[in-house]
């Protein structure tokens, strides 16, 4: 790197300005605006005038739907960690074997990822339709006790291919010699997996956990299309609650408080995760190098 002369400074300014202006105007400003309007009781029309301090946040902590959202989001994350990610890892290791047709399987398993959540959601409302779907006599989406698990199934259907692809890339970047050495030393399949593959996949696994959690925190499209959050809030998540208040009931101040809560939850999670979990990795999703 060299010292910057006058023309260089001009270049830095000119090249950086457009991205910076767009980013500040449409990413940072909205967050600041939400922080501001969250302190008001406001229906979204005209200017907010009724300042109520932190009342919206106090109300949030006593809001059964919102507290329920946290529990449901937590359950979706837990299910992803114990079912979806291990299954994706298993399939990645399977497709890492010299298997005839594995390129085709890989192409196929990843395909749902390119479909939008809306398309997937509408398709599965029909697949789960009690009268015209694939599994009649089962109330997939209409039963409050099962709806969240059905939602999880659809999310996994769409996203396991992404995690699988990431694990596959991680697995293929492990030098061959390491597995050969383990084999020479007489390690069995399980021992090699436990002591070579798994530790070396650590960085990739930590990233996929991060993506799963952030994905669950911001989940909206799929839920909105599949269930609308129902029946009786049984599949509602934070973004759906925010949408209901902000765009349906015109309690924009309160909905802004929910937005800020979602923001703070992602921010705190990301910072903690980066500090305590990703710190060992040289390269992380949100680290700068």
């Amino acid at each position, binding site marked *: 790197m060299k010292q910057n002369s006058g023309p260089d400074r001009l270049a830095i300014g000119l090249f950086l300005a457009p991205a910076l202006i767009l980013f500040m105007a449409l990413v940072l400003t909205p967050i600041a605006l939400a922080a501001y309007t969250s302190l008001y009781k406001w229906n979204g029309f005209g200017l907010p005038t009724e300042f109520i301090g932190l009342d919206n946040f106090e109300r949030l902590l006593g809001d059964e739907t919102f507290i329920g959202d946290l529990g449901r989001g937590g359950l979706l994350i837990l299910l992803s960690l114990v079912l979806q990610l291990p299954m994706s890892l298993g399939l990645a290791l399977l497709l890492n074997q010299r298997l005839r*047709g594995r390129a085709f399987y890989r192409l196929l398993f990843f395909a749902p990822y390119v479909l939008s959540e809306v398309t997937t959601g509408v398709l599965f409302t029909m697949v789960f339709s009690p009268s015209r779907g694939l599994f009649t006599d089962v109330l997939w989406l209409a039963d409050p006790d099962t709806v969240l698990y059905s939602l999880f199934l659809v999310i996994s259907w769409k996203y396991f291919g992404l995690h699988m*692809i990431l694990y596959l890339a991680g697995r293929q970047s492990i030098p061959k010699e390491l597995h050969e050495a383990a084999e020479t030393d007489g390690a069995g399949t399980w021992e090699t997996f436990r002591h070579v593959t798994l530790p070396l996949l650590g960085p990739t696994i930590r990233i996929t956990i991060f993506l799963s959690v952030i994905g669950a925190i911001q989940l909206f499209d799929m839920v909105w299309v599949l269930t609308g959050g129902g029946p009786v809030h049984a599949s509602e998540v934070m973004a759906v609650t925010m949408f209901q208040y902000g765009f349906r009931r015109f309690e924009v101040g309160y909905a802004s408080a929910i937005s800020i809560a979602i923001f703070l939850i992602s921010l705190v999670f990301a910072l903690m995760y980066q500090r305590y979990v990703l710190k060992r990795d040289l390269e992380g999703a949100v680290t700068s190098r």
Partner: protein
Amino acid sequence: MSVMKKLVLHAISIVVGAIIVVPILYGVFAGFKDNGQLSTNPLGLPSPWVFDNYADILSSPIFWQQLFNSTVIAFVTTLIVVILSAMAAYIFARFAFRGREVLFTLFTLGLMFPFAVAILPLFILLRSLGLLDSPFGVILPQAAFGLPVTIVILRSFFRTIPAEIEESAIIDGCTRFGFFWRILLPMARPALATVAVLAIVASWNNFFLPLVVFNNADLWTLPVGVQQFKGQYSEDTARILAYVTLSMVPALAFYAIAERQLIGGLATGTIKG
């Protein structure tokens, strides 16, 4: 590998493949059925084949309009996000200046701001800017939210290009801008293709933003259109599934063409980013 092990692995792959394919085929075939058939025979082949559902949708302008809207919005969003990100990434990769790391960290923090957080204030902001019911009301925020991941990927690519190339270009009388435009960008073509594919997919699948920004049905993109179509024909399951199937075709076709960039981009973007 033993024959037994091979058989087991193939069996698992086929079962997983079936879980992927069966719902999609159900949708494709349902489009060729009437609702009576769908109730009595949801899984099997249509008998007789009914072509009305697909024919009606393909002969009405609505589907084509939404396809056009999705395409234009994805194209313009991608153009903006790739150009602005390439310029910024060049600076972050090649210049030392005070505040560089702070600014770069600011952009990487943007990786964690999903639309869900910003959608309501964004709506209020776009309303006061008069951008509701304008394609730019979707294009500009999409471009803004696409900047972080694009800058991160391009910066790490630009760093791999030896500084000597830039120095000799400058000595030969090339300006900074000339180097960026005539040498760096052509060299970065694979990375640009990767980030462009990621931006196209993100725009194509976006639902939340066009849902709140476009009140005017003439501006709807395919995801919004699919959801509204479902609301409009709520009891006509076969017709809805025909619409869903048709809306999957462009995405899957694009995947067939750009699979390499998409998968490579996701792997480098998330792991090396």
